[in-house]
């Protein structure tokens, strides 16, 4: 579903991603962990074309992601959930969810709203449909953002630290939604510091350090006996 071949990304002189090779099968759940500044956000921003790799190729569903087609490709395959939610503040929750289906997927308003109500139920926020984002708590905003991402029914869902901007008591409500999602046949890539979530949901855990993909393994193996020295050092820091 997603393939990265030798992806490098630099901002000026700063090399942020170094020769990343990655293959994610359809329906797979991947979590990416790594220290701050290691390039995790940049990696998933490359996958949905918010950044362009300096060199290397990215394929979605076998098709190359190019400067000429990326808007179409993203529209067809990807949806993303951000650390800062990024809801559209001038639209109600319901309108946030229906905007892309109506304007990009050319669905009728009635059909788009029907889908929106469904996903509002999935995230448990039906009663908040007509309020503006600024009146919602962080956790509620993030659940609306997830509903917005789901409503376009893409095959690939990208999450960039969806719980790290939340107050501790709201983290679980968002994780619960994501755990429920992981039972569906959606390809998910989740950048997170929630090791519990990674253990429970991921098919594979990827460790990124200083722009290098250091280690990838199923969570059991990854957490029980990491092969790489740097992985071990990182895990011992965050698990204790």
């Amino acid at each position: 579903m997603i393939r990265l071949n030798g992806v490098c990304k630099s901002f000026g002189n700063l090399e942020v991603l170094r020769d990343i090779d990655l293959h994610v099968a359809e329906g797979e759940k991947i979590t990416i962990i790594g220290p701050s500044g290691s390039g995790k956000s940049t990696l998933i921003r490359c996958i949905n074309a918010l950044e362009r790799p300096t060199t290397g190729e990215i394929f979605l569903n076998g098709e190359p992601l190019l400067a000429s087609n990326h808007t179409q490709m993203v529209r067809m395959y990807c949806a993303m959930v951000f650390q800062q939610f990024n809801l559209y503040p001038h639209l109600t929750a319901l309108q946030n969810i229906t905007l892309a289906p109506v304007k990009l997927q050319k669905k009728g308003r009635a059909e788009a709203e029907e889908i929106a109500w469904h996903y509002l139920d999935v995230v448990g926020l039906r009663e908040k449909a007509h309020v503006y984002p600024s009146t919602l708590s962080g956790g509620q905003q993030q659940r609306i953002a997830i509903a917005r991402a789901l409503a376009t029914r893409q095959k690939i869902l990208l999450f960039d630290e969806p719980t790290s901007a939340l107050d501790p008591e709201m983290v679980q409500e968002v994780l619960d939604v994501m755990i429920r999602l992981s039972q569906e046949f959606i390809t998910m890539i989740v950048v997170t510091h929630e090791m519990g979530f990674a253990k429970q949901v991921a098919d594979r855990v990827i460790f990124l350090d200083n722009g290098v993909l250091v280690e990838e393994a199923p969570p059991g193996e990854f957490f029980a006996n990491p092969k790489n020295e740097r992985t071990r050092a990182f895990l011992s820091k965050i698990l204790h």
Partner: protein
Amino acid sequence: MGGPFSFRRWARLFADYSIFLEGMGITLLVAAAALGLALVLGIIFGLFSTSSLRPLRSLSRVYVEFFQNTPLVIQIFFIYNALPYVGIRMPELLIGVLGVGVYHGAYVAEVVRAGITSIPRGQWDAARSQGFSYVQAMRHIILPQTITIVLPPLGNQAVNLIKNTSILALIAGGDLMYRADSWAANGTLSYGPAYAVTGVLYFLMCFPLVKWVRKHELRIKNRDARAPADIPPAEKAGA
């Protein structure tokens, strides 16, 4: 004889009130047309200045800096006195519309630019991550948020623009200021009442606009508190 505000001078003014009303009509007409022009230019150059294409940004910069850093009166006199030498002759009112419109267009461009760049980067990220193109993101996500931000400064621009149309008095433009001035100068010498009434008339044109801007600002602030509308019953679980 009495002072500059003697009863006799006021009486003359009220006998000739239609001159003032006509002048006010002309001023409103010029202001409306110039505002339209300023908005069109301001939006175009404001968009240019946030474009990723360097030539467009430079073009916008030159336009804005040129008109912000030269006096309006030079621009008006240039069109009125200099352009006829190259065969371009325009009626005074058109000069007013062009001069004032282009001048304020530069300020509107700055307002639009500031509005667009004040939208957080995350809004662009969200829009692009959903597959909105640049133009679609601008239209559905960025500009609607920009409008609420720029309306108050645009209102202020409109007020300045109305006042600045009085520059037409310098080229015999037939606007309110010109009518008042020439009415007083030609025989009546009632400058005091003429300028006082003219000031009141300008105030009447500008103040409602200021009021409207303030009300609009409040409305935006209160928008978030709007009451929720109908919510259909939940669908059956397990959908």
